[in-house]
């Protein structure tokens, strides 16, 4: 009785979210001829395209998380130090950027740095630089596009955390004749590191799961292979068995589970200063 009003929600989410996840795990190990085994997994490991996709997704996740941290952390720090007007401007710019997503974002980048994009034509016309940008479907091109939502996300995630670093601490360090470098080395970085790690993990997790933007930019031939794109392609063609989609999906679920646990741990560590 004490659970009754929540039962519809629990039943619904169980059927729509938990059941599909268990089904994917089942289909990863279930063999066509009956019984269970590792054949499906081995077939994915043997497939060079799948290996490229796994390497591509992991590489993109690591590069994006690292670049988003390297650009986002100083940006967030500068934003917290701004006067009210500048701060409001940058916060709304981040908000604007985080709303420009999906297919539209891919279109925006093709219109900007595609072969007949605005910036491509400007650089070609004014400075005579031919082909200044990589294809948006290449690994580098995807990195350029993905930063557009990953940097704002990192900034918006870490901005509240930066207030942890109190101005008093900086003053106290200055009173003790600490240099700016010493302050960051012994106080700033150790306090903020868990927040940055947490942001890194979230950007990594979300990057390897992106589908809409990836689908659009990878439409050109010879594009970077990614796990999510392989799953989508497998589901649409009935030529390959759906087991392949199940194996790749389970891999993404395992990565998601792993990063979520690490994310919780690093936030717990970060909370010491709150």
């Amino acid at each position, binding site marked *: 009785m*004490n*659970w*009754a*009003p*929540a039962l*519809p*929600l*629990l039943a*619904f*989410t169980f059927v*729509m*979210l*938990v*059941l*599909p996840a268990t*089904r*994917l795990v089942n289909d990863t190990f279930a063999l066509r001829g009956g019984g269970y085994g590792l054949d499906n997994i081995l077939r994915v490991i043997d497939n060079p395209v799948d290996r490229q996709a796994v390497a591509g997704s992991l590489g993109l996740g690591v590069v994006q998380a690292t670049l988003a941290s390297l*650009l986002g952390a*100083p*940006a967030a720090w*500068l934003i917290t130090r701004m006067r009210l007007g500048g701060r409001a401007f*940058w916060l709304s*710019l981040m*908000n*604007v*950027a985080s*709303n*420009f*997503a*999906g*297919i*539209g974002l891919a*279109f*925006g980048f*093709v*219109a*900007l740095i595609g072969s007949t994009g*605005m*910036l491509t034509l400007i650089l070609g016309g*004014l400075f005579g630089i031919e082909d200044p940008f990589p294809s948006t479907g290449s690994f580098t091109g995807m990195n350029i596009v993905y930063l*557009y*939502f990953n940097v704002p*996300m990192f900034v918006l995630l870490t901005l509240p955390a930066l207030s942890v670093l109190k101005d008093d601490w900086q003053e106290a360090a200055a009173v003790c004749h600490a240099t700016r470098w010493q302050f960051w080395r012994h106080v700033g970085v150790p306090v903020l590191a868990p927040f940055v790690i947490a942001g890194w993990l979230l950007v990594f997790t*979300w990057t390897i*799961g992106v*589908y*809409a933007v990836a*689908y*659009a930019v990878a*439409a050109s031939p010879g594009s970077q292979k990614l796990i*999510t794109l392989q799953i*989508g392609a497998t*589901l649409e063609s009935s030529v390959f068995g*759906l087991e392949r989609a*199940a194996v790749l*999906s389970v891999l*993404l*679920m395992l990565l*998601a*589970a792993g990063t979520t646990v690490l994310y919780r741990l690093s936030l717990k560590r970060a909370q010491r200063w709150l």
Partner: protein
Amino acid sequence: MRRRIFLGLLGLYFGLPLLAALLYSVATRWTDTPLPDGYTLDHWIGVFGKPDVTSALLRSLLLSAVVVVVDVLLVVPAAYWSVVHNPRIGSVVQTIAVIPFAVPWVVVGAGLQLVTASFAPGLFGTFWLLAAATAAIAFPFMYWAVEGSLIAAGAVRLSEAAATCGANPVQTLTRVIFPAIRGGVVSGALLVVATAMNEFALAKILVGAKFETLPIWSARQFVSRTLGDPNALAVVTIFTFGFLFALSALVVRLGRGRVSTIGRTLR
């Protein structure tokens, strides 16, 4: 100085793709010159007269409306009971809410395709499956918003007071609690609408061309670049962006920044 250059470059990076799409939507002819040959509002007027665009927009709006209703009906009673009577509900729900937050929506779609293939093949490719799936991935936004406003409104005290006055649980929920948490429900609904309007992975996998939503329409234009209409795509892109931005600005306003909008538009 270095600081200015860093922020300036960052600002350019965020501004330029949006500017390029915006210019494309008002350009008369733009092939090999840095800026369009001329400007016109014809695409903006023309696009909403195209039957494929208007029907895709209507489909997306219908999907959003159904998803919001489903999520309100499922989430509000559960969140209320969790806050007032049984906190264990909350911890179970929070655990489930991690799934759409961390697991890619492509994976949710893949799982649903496999499940429906064996249990209910007739459901696959229908609007109702897409609506249910979208409601499932968007429900955490509703839950977090409603739970937050239940706690802020002092739902425990309110229900005690209502019970003292002789109200039964249903009366308490509809006449006392619901009016008190309207702000949270609206914030949650706006986030759910934003998710449903922009969701691509589930729509692509579960229904595809059978129920062409606005993102699916955009993808079709984008991928078939020779057949597609880039100016119309530019208009829809800027229109969708403006719509989502307005929604998130409203949410920030309603929640005074307390409700997180992060991670909504990503996938």
